């Protein structure tokens, strides 16, 4: 039985109940039940292949895009099951945003990248304000405000990733999912992203997948340790890294394997 000591006390942004994910015959997630408290940063850690990205993708139904993937169990958002029949995944993804490992800006201008999401819902009259606000939240506004019409591909890696964050924020989600957002970036850019996460958590709930344990320790309130599709331990970050309950967790965080 996994050691779970994180409870949202009824104020969970997200909750999973016995979620299993199969890719064809292989089981990638083997029955995970956990709560993601509101306005907190939760880090998912574990060795390669443990299923942390797969679990992350359950939260915004991105696994739907993989034809052989099958998700069972419940994922609750504000109490509603994301996988219920009447739920439209597009609507889910509007409220639960995602930032990917490798920055993936569209080959369009900086402005058009950020405006992409809002434009899906019509022609908002305050589009300029929306774009500016999103870029400010992503701590990118000052660097790009004079060249919004330039191609996004001309930005540095770190700037592109912050652009992707701004793009995700522009549709005003409640939860932000981040799949190893800094692993492709240099240390300075990484530090900027981590600083940004600390600022964003005031308004958003953030779930971050990372293979960098120091990063998890710096940035998150709670940490969940996964191993081959199972949740081994889920606790306050400090505890996970200084006094974990499971031997398995201790072995991983002290670098005995992984």
């Amino acid at each position: 039985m996994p050691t779970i000591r994180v409870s949202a006390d009824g104020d969970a942004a997200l909750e999973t109940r016995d979620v299993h994910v199969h890719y064809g015959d292989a089981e990638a997630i083997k029955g995970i039940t956990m709560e993601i408290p509101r306005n907190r940063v939760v880090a998912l850690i574990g060795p390669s292949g443990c299923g942390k990205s797969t679990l992350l993708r359950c939260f915004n139904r991105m696994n739907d895009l993989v034809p052989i993937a099958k998700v069972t169990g419940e994922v609750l958002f504000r109490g509603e099951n994301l996988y219920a029949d009447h739920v439209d995944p597009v609507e889910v993804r509007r409220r639960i945003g995602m930032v990917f490992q490798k920055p993936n800006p569209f080959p369009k201008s900086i402005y058009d990248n950020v405006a992409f999401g809002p434009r899906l819902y019509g022609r908002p009259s305050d589009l300029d304000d929306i774009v500016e606000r999103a870029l400010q939240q992503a701590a990118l506004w000052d660097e790009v405000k004079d060249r919004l019409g330039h191609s996004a591909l001309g930005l540095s890696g770190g700037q592109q990733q912050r652009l992707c964050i701004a793009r995700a924020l522009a549709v005003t989600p409640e939860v932000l999912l981040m799949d190893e957002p800094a692993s492709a970036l240099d240390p300075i850019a990484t530090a900027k992203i981590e600083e940004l996460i600390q600022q964003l958590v005031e308004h958003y709930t953030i779930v971050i997948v990372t293979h960098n344990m120091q990063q998890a320790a710096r940035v998150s309130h709670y940490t969940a340790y996964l191993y081959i599709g199972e949740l081994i331990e889920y606790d306050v970050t400090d505890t996970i890294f200084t006094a974990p309950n499971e031997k398995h967790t201790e072995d991983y965080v002290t670098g005995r394997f992984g």
Partner: protein
Amino acid sequence: MSGERWSLEAPPELVARRRRGKVFQALCLAATLVGVVTLAVLLADVLIDGVKWLSPTFFTEFPSRLPARAGIKSALYGTLWLMGLVALISFPLGVAAAVWLEEYARKGWLQTAIQTNIANLAGVPSIVYGILGLAIFVRWMFALTGGRSVISGALTISLLVLPILIIAGQEAIRAVPNSIREASYGLGATRWQTVRHHVLPNAMPGILTGTILALSRAIGETAPLIMIGALTFIAFVPDGPRDQFTVLSIQVYNWVSRPQDDFRGLAAAAIIVLLALLLSMNALAIWLRNRYRKEW
């Protein structure tokens, strides 16, 4: 967000977006199907008009003013002669050029120039090749080719299909993994030895497929052959490369141009033969491609 009706169902705007998407998707499917339907209609049209003219005499008779006695013997033989000569000329030339471009040429301006040149040649209208053939092979090289002969036609068509062959050959050669070359060089083999014993045998299925596809393109060519003087009404088959000739596609053109309905039917029958030849060549190429598709 706080005053909103809370639900994860699709709101009306999303429903509208989805509906619009479905409509466009259907339009795109329709666009794709137009091609399929057109092909079906075309084949049906040809078959309906032409099948009744397909008799054994159709293949053994020469064209005649009387539809009942007309046949494609000269055209069919001419086509086969032409294809044979084109294959003989263009295959070695095309493979050699592809080998040079991929295995010998140093990446420099010359290689780029030749590469770009070949890409451009592939897009030159076929009738321009006909003009070239007329001036060079029929007139300038009259003594060698005998003028408006099947060898002139073959040379012209070879030049036409050469770019296609070379490009296909290059792709096939490029698909051979470098590890094979490295292993060969590592044993001390020369470049030619490596090409001859390792690269070419592995690339050959792809090269053959490309050749067959190039030939199937050649079989349908009409305008360049009209230009170099393949006649539209001959009653003999070629005995040698310097003989005059005609081909199936020109015979089709000739018959289609006549107003009488019977000749339309003959044209359709000739088209059936032409398409049958084409389809079998394509099928052969696809079979080759699938049979020898290697999982590197």
